[in-house]
């Protein structure tokens, strides 16, 4: 195909320039806004050492700029919104998952090192011999307490929780005359606390309060004295350690653990993220307590995906064959009624079945008890739970299979059947010899796609019973009906000992590999790649 790239506009160069000037200026204006936002975001991300996201944002920004400023990249200009979204919302999460699999990212290690140093640096303590004040307390009608502080040089400050200290004089708004000690006699809206009010609540209520705002936070030390809090841990760049100002202990950064650890083995919280190499994968491979549920979940994932495809395809194909004859009266009505389950949102479909199978009151369960005097434990028995999920998934999925089979059956030429009939082939022979092989050619790729889809069919598993019933005695929560992705999800969000994103990402990485293998197989061995490549 000949090159079709033209400069914007037609006619003479000048006309074309004038023609494109407004759009050019508009583009520059848009770029300026995007770049301004991006630079501000990048500054914050780099300050907080959030490297992966900073890299993604930088790549997207550079791309958008290059594409909009270089005329050679004009075709990409049309795609820049799509490419920006694909890079940021699809590609970056995949790469970040892979990266996370090699880190200790988990509860207690959520922050970057810079963020952790800042967070730990917010801890305060009351030092001996620091800056002190004499104080008087005032209480509002809503029982909020504020302080007036008098410093060593005689100035008076107002200390309100969460606001910076404020110097006051008798002339300030709402402040009454000062007494001999330098405290205001009255403050509008507050009553001054007397000694007999203070004593009973000093330790229990007043001592824990912090007044003022970081870094000038003030705490009550005794009945007469209030003192400024000081940072307890100070980061020492040379030592790469946090130094405890109160106890004098030094917590060195341990880059393999992602924590500040003292020589006596005490660990500062929170820790920070570090890369840990293959440690997450080693845990998966070597810890028998973790491997046990993983193998079990893995087996059920394969079985679930395979059986889901097999049952929905079998029923869908059967119905398509039975109702394929265009001479059937009401064929269109039957088809419309049969695809209704497909139109119900998946979660709602599962929830409806969950109600019908309900252990005590569900219509299916109660009728089974009435008829046979027994009903299976649809949600408590491991095997029946799996059967229930397959049943629900069959209901949700067979219309799709029926639709694609009906479509595919149309494309099988009828003279093949006529020839087979002449040769005296039976219905079965015709089905196994002609229909199925020819059907699989066109439907095969969709079956593989359906397998991959069910391999990750989180919705059905989660909405049916959230992966329960639980497998007893596992260190991390796992259920009999959990598939890999729901198991991963639990590790990340419902872990008994906190979220372990690193380990969850390691399992996700394994799923990535499996999906990639299936897809490779689909493209390579079913000849789909050639077909796609030709259509490009």
């Amino acid at each position: 195909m000949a090159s079709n790239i033209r400069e914007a506009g037609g006619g003479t160069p000048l006309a074309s320039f004038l023609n494109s000037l407004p759009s050019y200026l508009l583009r520059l204006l848009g770029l300026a806004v995007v770049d301004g936002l991006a630079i501000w975001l990048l500054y914050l991300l780099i300050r907080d050492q959030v490297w992966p996201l900073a890299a993604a944002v930088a790549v997207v920004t550079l791309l958008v700029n290059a594409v909009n400023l270089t005329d050679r990249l004009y075709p990409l200009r049309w795609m820049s919104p799509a490419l920006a979204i694909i890079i940021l919302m699809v590609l970056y999460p995949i790469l970040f998952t892979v990266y996370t699999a090699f880190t200790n990212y988990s509860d207690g290690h959520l922050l970057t090192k810079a963020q952790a140093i800042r967070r730990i640096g917010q801890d305060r303590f009351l030092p001996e011999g620091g800056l002190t004040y004499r104080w008087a307390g005032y209480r509002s009608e809503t029982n909020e307490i504020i302080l007036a502080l008098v410093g060593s040089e005689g100035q008076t400050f107002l200390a309100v929780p969460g606001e910076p200290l404020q110097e006051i004089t008798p002339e300030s708004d709402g402040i009454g005359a000062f007494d001999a000690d330098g405290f205001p006699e009255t403050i509008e809206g507050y009553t001054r606390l007397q000694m007999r009010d203070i004593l009973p609540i000093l330790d229990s209520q007043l001592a824990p309060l912090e007044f003022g705002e970081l870094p000038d936070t003030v705490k009550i030390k005794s009945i007469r004295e209030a003192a400024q809090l000081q940072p307890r841990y100070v980061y020492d760049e040379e030592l790469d350690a946090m130094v405890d100002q109160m106890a004098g202990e030094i917590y060195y950064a341990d880059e393999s653990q992602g924590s500040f650890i003292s020589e006596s083995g005490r660990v500062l919280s929170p820790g920070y993220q570090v890369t840990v190499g293959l440690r997450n994968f080693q845990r998966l491979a070597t810890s028998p307590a973790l491997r046990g549920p993983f193998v079990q979940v893995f087996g059920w994932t394969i079985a679930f995906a395979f059986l889901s495809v097999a049952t929905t395809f079998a029923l869908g194909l059967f119905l398509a064959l039975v109702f394929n004859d265009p001479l059937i009266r009401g064929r269109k009505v039957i088809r419309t009624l049969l695809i209704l389950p497909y139109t119900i949102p998946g979660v709602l479909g599962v929830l409806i079945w969950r109600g019908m199978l309900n252990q005590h009151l569900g219509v299916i369960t109660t009728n089974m008890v009435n008829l046979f005097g027994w009903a299976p434990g649809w949600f408590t028995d491991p095997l029946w739970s799996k059967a229930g999920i397959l049943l629900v998934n069959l209901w949700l999925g067979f219309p799709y299979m029926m639709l694609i089979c009906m479509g595919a059956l149309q494309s099988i030429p009828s003279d093949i059947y006529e020839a087979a009939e002449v040769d005296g082939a039976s219905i079965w022979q015709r089905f196994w010899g002609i229909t199925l092989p020819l059907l699989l050619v066109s439907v095969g790729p969709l079956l593989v796609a359906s397998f991959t889809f069910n391999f990750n069919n989180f919705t059905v598993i989660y909405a049916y019973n959230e992966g329960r019933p639980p497998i007893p005695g596992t260190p991390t929560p796992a259920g009999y009906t959990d598939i890999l992705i729901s198991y991963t999800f639990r590790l990340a969000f419902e872990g008994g000992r906190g979220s372990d994103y690193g380990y969850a990402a390691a399992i996700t990485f394994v799923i990535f590999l499996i999906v990639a293998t299936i897809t490779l197989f689909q493209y390579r061995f079913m000849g789909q790649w050639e077909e796609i490549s030709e259509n490009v």
Partner: protein
Amino acid sequence: MSSLSIPQKTPTPVAGSSIRRQRRLQSVFRLIIAVFAIGFALFPILWIVSAAFNPTSSMANQRLIPPNASTANFVKLLTNPLQPFMLWLWNSIKIAGITTILVVFITALTAYSFSRFRFRGRRSLLLTILLIQVFPNMLAIVALFLLLRQLGEYFPTFGLNSHGGLILVYMGTQMGINIWLMKGFFDSIPRDIDESAAVDGATHWQAFWWLIFPLVRPILAVVGILTFVSVFNEFILANVLLRSNEQFTLMVGLYLFVTQNFAQQWGVFAAGALIGALPIAIIYVLMQDLIVGGLTQGAVKG
């Protein structure tokens, strides 16, 4: 895609009573299967309709045809302030609507470019987009969660528990497949149209906006419907990324609400499910041929 109603197998006209009897046997057989299949397909739906109109919300003593049918469950559904159903419905429509408009517009621009321009790396870029899309976004759910949490520290509009963030995530899930769907359709529009417009002095943008865009309306409709339906129905991502009651989508809200006390909330849930499922079901039934075409080109229900 060939239409489903094209007859392809004409029966051989053979006289004789045995053949006729065989045909009658066949249609009886078909009738039995039709009854069973339709029963299996429809019973859960009828049961939920009946539950919605059952005057007591409890699951106990529910009949297929409820005596004293009433709309009590609908009233309960719409008046309980703890489960702001209308707000959830509005959130779902808003999120699905905004996502759909943005996806249709952005993928149309991209597809136009892939279809009309020839440039270096075009082929590999198209194939890369297809390959990336093989990994379902749900797999990266942990990364998406962490991404939104980090973004939210600087832009709360796109953080966790925000509709902005969820829309960004949904747009990501919809890009690849729809770019391919659209590009295929754009390719079928003759290039003479653009070229004659260029001769008349139109820019690419003018040609796209005034000539091509109106011509590709059918595929815009397909992409729009498929996107709207799949975003409206999506549950897992919304369940993880949204946190507070007033931010929930319909699916998340109904799920959390019914699972708290299944047997007692059954009727109210049924009423909600009915309202939530009805618009989608109508879209599907009215547009089944259109959607079947889209499906068989590779979209799997999600």
